Structure formats: C-alpha cells, structure tokens
C-alpha cells in the first residue's frame, strides 16, 4: 500500500471491568480511500474509533495519523482528524453557525466566516445558520455534527454509523457528501450495519467481531462471497412432502409444510428463480406471498466467526 494515512499497530483495549473490547489489531488505511468497518453491536468498532480520536486510552499499541503519533504528537494527529460520533450530541441552545465556528476554533484554526459558510452550504444548512440546534430535526442535527467535524478541514474523517436512523433522502445526501469529500482528498472511515451502504460507497471493507478484525479486503472480492440470497414462498396449501420434481433446485420445506425456502447466488447469471416459479405453476402449487432476503451482515458475521471457532 502506498503511504498509509492512518497506521494502526497492535492496538488493543481492555476496560477496567476486564472486558477486552479490542484484541491486538493491525490496520493500514490508504490516503483517499473510503473504508467501511462492519460489525455487530459491541464488536469494538466504536472503541477503535474512540482510541484513534483520543476519547479512549489504548491498553497497548500505536496509531499514527498522517505521520503524527496520536499520543506523543496528539496536537498534530488530532488536527488531521474529524469525528462524527454515533449519538447526536449537540449544544441545544447554540445557533448552527456558532457551533460550527466553535468547533473550528477548538481545533486551533483561526476564525474564517467564509469557510464556515462553505461547510454549511455543502451540508444544506446555510438556511438554518441562525437556528438554534434544539429546533432542528434529527436529520438536520446529524448534518450539524458533520459540519462541526469538517470545520477544521480534517484529512481523515470518521463517521460512526452515519446513516443509523436516518431517512432515505438524507442517506443519499450523505453518500454524495462522502464521495465529494473523497474527491477533495479526504480519507473516510465509516462504520455501518448496512451491507448496501458498504456496497454503495466503500473501496475496502473491514469486518470486526468480538474485538477482532477478522478480515479487511477489497469490496469487490468481498461482495462475491456475500452475494447469497434466499427466496421464501408462503404456500396456499401446505405440502406433506417435497415433490421430487423440485429436487433440482435444492429447496427446503419449512414451517410445517407451509413455506418453501430456496437459496441462490444473486450475482450468478442464472439464479434459478424464474425456472423454479415456472415449475411450481406446472405442478399446480399456488403461493400467497413471496419474499427474497439477503443474508444480513449480522448473520454473515455469526457464520464467519463460528467458522473460525470450529
């Protein structure tokens, strides 16, 4: 990898309670890439981000951000980093513009109303510049938090669950913003529960589970592995046994004969779905409902992790 902008070596965290939130972890993030960190709740994503940003003291290991050690040269490192935490923590009584200007100052930058205006415009907040934060909707507050994180022009931006509980429109906006930032040379590390989000945006995906980084690879190769989908048909009449004619599709009979379950590779040229449906019609097997389901990331983690344990 060319000159990583963020370099993590042997980073671990054991809390005073004895909980090992992060097992020794190595990770390099390339300059200008979008890295999605996936993992179930409590996997250690937020702990890792919190250490890099200075909110949590590591038990062991080192991190350098754009060449600055996050502990020995914390000023240099932190000036390069912007953080948008998961929870909406805002100063309710402050006006939007003031809170963004405050963040800029906090990170050691001289006042620059023009730059603050630009950040607010980029996030469609300019019309709300004099509004108090408590009068804003949840989605708008999320934008304010991003604006605050961008006010000092960071090189590395952490977005912790940026689209959790966010409406579709804002999610689209967020994705566009992330791409624009990347075009401007900003490296972005985001955590998410949503596979589509990683699929849509990330160059590389890391999977973290139980405090362990279990893989970090290019999105395209990962998507091939995770491309399984399942089709479930609710039958009009329950079946006692599976007709022999369906053996070709490896379907399963579930729910006491009320449902048919078929797993297929969504990325394959021939998924087998149309032919299966045609065969059912030929056999006179009616169904009342149909849905397809992509294995959730949580399910994939569970299987990934249990595979490793076996």
């Amino acid at each position, binding site marked *: 990898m060319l000159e990583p902008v963020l370099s993590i070596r042997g980073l671990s965290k054991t809390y005073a309670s004895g909980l090992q939130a992060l097992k020794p972890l190595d990770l390099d993030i390339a300059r200008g890439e979008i890295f999605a960190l996936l993992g179930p709740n409590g996997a250690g994503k937020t702990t890792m981000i919190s250490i890099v940003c*200075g909110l949590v*003291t590591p038990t062991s290991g080192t991190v350098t951000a754009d060449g600055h050690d996050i502990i020995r040269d914390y000023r*240099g490192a932190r000036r390069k980093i912007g953080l948008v*935490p998961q929870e909406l*923590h805002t100063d309710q009584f402050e006006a939007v513009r*003031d809170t963004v200007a*405050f963040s800029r*100052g*906090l990170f*050691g930058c001289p006042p620059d109303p023009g730059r603050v205006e630009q950040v607010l415009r980029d996030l469609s907040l300019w019309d709300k510049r004099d509004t108090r934060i408590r009068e804003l909707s949840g989605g708008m507050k999320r934008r304010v938090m991003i604006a605050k994180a961008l006010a000092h022009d960071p090189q590395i931006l952490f977005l912790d669950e940026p689209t959790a509980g966010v409406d579709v429109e804002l999610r689209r906006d967020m994705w566009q913003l992330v791409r624009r930032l990347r075009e401007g040379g900003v490296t972005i590390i985001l955590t998410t529960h949503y596979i589509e989000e990683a699929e849509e945006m990330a160059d590389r995906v890391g999977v973290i589970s139980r405090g362990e980084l279990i893989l970090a690879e290019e999105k395209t190769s990962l998507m091939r592995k995770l491309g399984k989908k399942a089709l479930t048909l609710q039958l009009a009449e329950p079946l006692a046994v599976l007709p022999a004619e369906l053996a070709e599709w490896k379907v399963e009979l579930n729910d006491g004969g009320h449902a048919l379950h078929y797993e297929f590779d969504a990325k394959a040229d021939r998924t087998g779905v149309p032919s299966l449906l045609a065969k059912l019609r030929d056999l006179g097997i009616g169904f009342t409902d149909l849905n397809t389901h992509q294995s959730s990331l949580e399910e994939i983690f569970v299987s990934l992790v249990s595979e490793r344990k076996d």
Partner: protein
Amino acid sequence: MSGFNAHGVWAIYRFELHRFRRTLWTGLAVPVITTSLYFIVFGAAIGSRMAEIDGVDYGTFIVPGLMMLSLFTESIFNASFGIHMPRFTGTIYELLSAPLSAFETVLGYVGAAATKSMIVALVILATANLFVDVHIAHPLLMIAFLLLIAATFCLFGFIIGIWAKGFEQLQVIPLLVVTPLTFLGGAFYSIDMLPEPWRTATLFNPVVYLISGFRWTFFGTADVGVWVSLGATFAFFLACLGIVWWIFRTGYRLKA
C-alpha cells in the same frame, strides 16, 4: 506540530461567556437583589444596633464578606456547570478529540467562570456602595485577591463538575460545605467576637483566611495576618491545581 492552541482556548472562553450572556439579566439581578436584602436586614435593621468593628461600621464591615460569599458560590456554580454540561449532553467528545492540552482546556473554562464571578463580585461592590460608603485601602491588592480566590474556587468548581455524577451532586458541595464554612468563617462578623474555644476552632476553617485577607485589602485590618491569608489562599489554589492535573493525567471520569 505543537504550540499553544490559543484559538481553542478562546473558543471555549467565548462559548462559556455566550452561555452567561443568555442569562445575563437574571445573572446580574440576583446579586443586586440579594445584596440589597442583606443591607436592609444586616445593615439597616440589625447593623444600626451593632458596635463598630475595628473602627469600621457594621454595614461597611460586611461588604467584603458578602462579595466573598457570592464569589465562592458563583465560581463553583459557573465552573462546575460549565464542564458538567458537556459531560451530561455528550458534547465532551469534541473537547476530548480536539488538539487541546489539559492546561488550555482548564484555562478556557476556569478563565470564563472566573470572569463572570468577578463581574458579579464587582456588581455587589457597586450595589453596596449605594447603601454605605466603601473605602478600599488597597484597590490593586483587592483585585489581585479577588482574582486569586475566583481562580481557586473556579478550579474547585471544575473538580466538582468532573466528579459529580448528576446535577444534584453539583449542588451538594456548595450548599453543604462552602456556604456553612463561609457563614462560620467570619463573613458577617470578626472572629475576635467569638468566645473560646470557638475562636480557635474557627482557625481550622480555611475560608477564614480568604475572607480575612480580602477584608484586609479594604480596611487594612484583619483577623489573621495578611501574609498568612495569602499563603493559605495560595496553598488552596495549588491543591486544586494539583487535583485538576491528576484528573487529566488519569482521565478520571473523562476517558475510559
């Protein structure tokens, strides 16, 4: 890259003063009304029956004590609330992730809190002047003492704001410790007026030294020597500074 983050300190200082400005009128009306009440009760009603203390009439005598009483409570309240609020709302994440040293963070918060409590103390002085004629023997030393005590109690308030687990706890120390110690520390009387053993017992109350020293800057007379007072005040200041240093060193209630 290193060097003093002056923009960061200024951002915190301005943020805190902005918070005070939002409640400016109540913030100033309260000390004015409270001081007036004290003067009506202690100055006019009771004070007229009191003898002079060290050649100072009673109404004038209580002015430094009144200023101290408000300075203590204001300093603790402003500083503890200032740092407790971000912990409560969660916005502390930004402070912890900013390129600020412990010294810079404390300078911003304590500086702003001390500014406000000094303004309140001076408003009380101005209000008192409407009731009695206050002559200040050592005005520069008075300001210096005011500044040192404000800084000390703001540091103390900062510690309480970090230690407190909720808003109730913010009130506990000021109400249960500082206010009683101030009332018993000679805010409204000279400790020479007390019979033994209470007079000696009072010397273990640190607030006695603060009030006595401050009163000396007004009248040139005091219960205890001014250098003893100054030394005690400075020792308290250093103790608070030491605890704040320890808080940032260990991340106590700030970092996991």
